[in-house]
């Protein structure tokens, strides 16, 4: 139930996958929205705090997700997928993980540029490590924005590919991530 099976993802992997998807979409929109708030907006202080706290929790979720991936490997690619499709999918998945961590790292470097820790909903703080690099907050901010755009674009492509397999090829790629085994090959 919890574990992945040969024909579909298990409950834990699915939960983590969709949780990450929702969090990434939310953090992206929240990030773009919050930087345009004005000083007298009620969310001026809380929105960035929520963005940072949620971003740190996302990082923990991703670490758990990678750990679980080792304990319970994902189902193998569908036999109907061409070799290039499998390679593209694997490369995209790796790049998604890489971009996720790079976006989180750059966000962390913005907030900790002067040595201040990141407060996570009053639960705990992530201390600053690298701080005081020349122009750190501005550079990290630029990198954060562009990597986040890259991440969300790649995630969009990833979603389009899954939809194409599900609804055009009708091979059940998406079903496997929704708890149903793919339909048996015709």
């Amino acid at each position, binding site marked *: 139930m919890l574990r992945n099976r040969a024909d579909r993802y298990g409950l834990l992997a699915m939960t983590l996958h969709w949780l990450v998807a929702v969090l990434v979409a939310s953090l992206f929109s929240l990030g773009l929205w919050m930087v345009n708030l004005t000083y007298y907006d009620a969310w001026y202080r809380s929105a960035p705090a929520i963005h940072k706290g949620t971003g740190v929790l996302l990082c923990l979720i991703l670490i758990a997700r990678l750990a679980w991936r080792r304990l319970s490997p994902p189902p193998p690619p569908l036999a109907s997928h061409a070799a290039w499709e499998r390679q593209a999918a694997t490369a995209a998945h790796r790049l998604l993980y890489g971009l996720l961590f790079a976006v989180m790292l750059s966000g962390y470097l*913005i907030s900790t540029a002067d040595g201040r820790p990141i407060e996570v909903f009053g639960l705990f703080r992530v201390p600053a490590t690298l701080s005081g690099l020349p122009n750190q907050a501005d550079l990290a901010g630029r990198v954060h924005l562009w990597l986040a755009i890259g991440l969300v674009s790649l995630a969009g492509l990833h979603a389009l590919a899954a939809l194409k397999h599900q609804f055009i090829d009708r091979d059940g790629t998406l079903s496997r991530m929704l708890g149903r085994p793919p339909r048996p090959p015709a």
Partner: protein
Amino acid sequence: MSTRSRLSLPLLFALGAALLPGLLPGSAAAEVEQYVIDTEGAHAFVQFRIKHLGFSWLYGRFNDFDGSFSYDPEDSASSAINVAIRTASIDSNHAERDKHLRGKDFLHVDKFPTATFASTGYSPNGDGTGTLTGELTLHGVTRPVTIAVEEIGAGTDPWGGYRRGFQGETSFPLKDFGIDYDLGPAAQVVEIILSVEGIRQDG
């Protein structure tokens, strides 16, 4: 992020001068002293303060600037000063706020990397204070400003040099320089506090 707030401005001021030997019968040609502002040794500060919501003062400074001034002890009215400030060096002791201050809402440092002050005149009050006038260019806008100057002191330093220093203060609404981000009614005006020490280059 925490209280991001304010902004500020550069400044400057000064002294210095030119000499009118012909008008000073009998005096040996007095010399106009030429000074370079001691930013290298950090004996000069471009600081600002602005009210936070009307509840307290927020202080900050510009860390990277340079300038020079001339001063004639016998005719201080002919003093002159020029200062250039790298706006990206704003420092209010909060990285996220400084990032905001460097951005489009405030200094827009990518577009306006330098703020300058060039004096146009100095009128000493005769009691060690005076009024410096000049043109401040900030955020791409050039406007006249008036700086209240206090002549603090001058003399030989312990290392074989000669130094002269001043304190200057001015204030202006940020929106005069096209910076109109709403920080609230109590935070319209920024005060600039300049502390300048020059090391004499001539003689």
